[in-house]
């Protein structure tokens, strides 16, 4: 049986079930449902690897009349990555959510979020992608608001406004493309889109809408309060997966239009914004005094690295473009695992010290070494130290920059690594200072630490075995021949 529709149907079923069930069963039902959803994701990837690109004709109506689901290596890989990251996050949530309001809202919203993510990975239709990002955005905003404080309400409101503006810009683009091509299918955009000024303007509008949602510098203002102020598993899901969804659509759009179709100046603008993000995000992270806000600013910086992809694939030789693709997707995967691990570990540390301030971490190394170790492991990958996935990804990006002669990105890659190492060390240094001798720390339960630990280890191992997932992610895409 084709697993594609199940990837959306199962999370929606989960959302329906946990919404109706009484509170005490929600976590159990969710954890039980993780198994079939993860299985469907793996099955999709296996199908793509054995039989090539998979598709499913929804309602039996072929596109452009109906909507198609389509899974190439990139989409299937993202579905597996979603399962990989979301599973530890949901386990963490099952053990960490305390207030009734949080438990009330978290489970249905998390399942809606998952359904929206899978919708986006699999969609082959522009308007369907719009509904997908709206579902994703609203669920994410709701999750941010769950933290319950006044600050989190303000952060959710700001996030919602940005998300709404972003979706409207995207929708304007959809309207223009539908007017120009008469179809909403991505396949038709690929076939007839290039060279039409209307389509080009549409894609530029959509690009800016998606940049808002991805929080690329200088449009990132909403991200740190939203990600830093949310409940811990929510921060992890948002930073690891949700912003990747709008980036995914952006990459899809650009690749659908074809490598030569988008203007080089726009690609360079995105790259320069990314460079700005790396430095600004890293610098701001270094200046923070609250742990989770620091991690959130680190997300702002890391998003910037992903955007170096655009100048490196636009108008460059295929070898350089393939390296850039590999570097970008590996960075995406490594960042998803490492950032989720770091947020979970940071949340555990916050739980242990009973506060957010980095200065209060003094002495935590003696009493809660495992929690701190998890944070350190995630930090290794984020700052791009070998043998982590982050290191391998940066290495690929450096090679791509050299191959295409775009030297300007080397200082960005190097400086970004130094800055991220600096803010990770800042946290570790504060934790390694001897504190009071008595154990004033609370004990996070073992599953909380383990979920962070597992994710951190995955992001480390990703660097050692990078070959295999990279080959999977290339399958069926424009870079399938390379490597």
């Amino acid at each position, binding site marked *: 049986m084709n697993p594609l529709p199940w990837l959306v149907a199962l999370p929606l079923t989960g959302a329906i079930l946990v919404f109706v069930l009484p509170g005490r069963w929600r976590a159990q039902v969710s954890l039980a449902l993780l198994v079939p959803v993860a299985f469907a994701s793996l099955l999709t990837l296996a199908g793509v690897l054995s039989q090539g690109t998979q598709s499913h004709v929804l309602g039996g109506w072929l596109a452009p009349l109906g909507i198609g689901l389509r899974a190439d290596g990139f989409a299937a890989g993202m579905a597996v990555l979603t399962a990989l990251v979301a599973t530890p996050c949901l386990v963490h949530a099952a053990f960490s959510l305390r207030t009734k309001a949080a438990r009330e809202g978290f489970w249905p919203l998390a399942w809606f979020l998952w359904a929206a993510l899978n919708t986006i990975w699999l969609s082959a239709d522009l308007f369907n992608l719009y509904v997908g990002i709206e579902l994703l955005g609203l669920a994410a905003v709701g999750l941010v*608001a769950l933290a319950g404080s006044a600050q989190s309400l303000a952060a959710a409101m700001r996030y919602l406004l940005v998300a709404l503006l972003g979706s409207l810009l995207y929708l*304007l683009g959809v309207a223009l493309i539908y007017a120009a091509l008469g179809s909403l299918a991505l396949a038709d955009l690929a076939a007839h889109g290039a060279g039409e000024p209307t389509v080009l303007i549409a894609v530029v509008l959509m690009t800016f809408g998606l940049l808002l949602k991805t929080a690329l510098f200088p449009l990132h203002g909403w991200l740190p309060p939203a990600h830093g102020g949310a409940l811990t598993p929510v921060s992890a899901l948002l930073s690891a997966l949700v912003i990747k969804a709008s980036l995914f659509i952006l990459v899809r759009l650009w690749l659908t239009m074809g490598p030569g179709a988008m203007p080089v100046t726009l690609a360079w603008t995105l790259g320069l914004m990314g460079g700005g993000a790396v430095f600004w995000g890293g610098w701001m992270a270094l200046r923070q005094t609250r742990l989770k806000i620091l991690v959130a600013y680190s997300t702002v910086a890391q998003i910037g690295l992903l955007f170096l992809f655009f100048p490196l694939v636009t108008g460059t030789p295929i070898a350089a473009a393939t390296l850039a693709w590999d570097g970008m997707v590996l960075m995406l995967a490594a960042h998803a695992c490492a950032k989720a691990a770091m947020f979970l570990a940071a949340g555990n540390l916050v739980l242990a010290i009973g506060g957010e301030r980095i200065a209060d971490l003094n002495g935590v190394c003696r009493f809660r070494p495992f929690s701190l170790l998890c944070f350190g492991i995630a930090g290794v990958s984020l700052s791009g130290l070998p043998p982590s996935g982050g290191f391998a990804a940066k290495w690929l990006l450096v090679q791509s920059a050299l191959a295409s002669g775009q030297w300007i990105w080397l200082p960005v890659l190097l400086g970004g690594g130094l800055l991220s190492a600096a803010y990770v060390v800042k946290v570790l240094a504060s934790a390694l200072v001897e504190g009071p001798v008595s154990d004033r720390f609370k004990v996070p339960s073992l599953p909380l630490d383990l979920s962070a630990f597992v994710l951190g280890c995955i992001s480390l191992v990703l660097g050692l075995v990078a070959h295999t997932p990279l080959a999977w992610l290339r399958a069926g895409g424009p870079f399938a021949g390379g490597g």
Partner: protein
Amino acid sequence: MSGGAWYAWVGVALSTLGFFGFVVHRHLVRRLLAFNIMGSGCFLLLVGLAGDGRAIDPVAQALVLTGIVVAVASTALALVLLRRWYRVSGESVLPEDV
């Protein structure tokens, strides 16, 4: 000018106006209104361009209907958040926007 094109141009005007209002205002209710104006402009553009010089396009109408429901849900969620934010803060602008 055909009817469809006229609607499309009104849509362009409304989207631009809504975008301006959304960026320039700070009061949250105004921003929400601006969002809805921009959304209406967007829907008009979609229907107007699709129906221009041809038979009425049921696909565009269905898309707009879907879009309207999504916009209603977003507006409702924004209003709920706004009410809750007003109750804890007594303000109807966001903190750093003052």
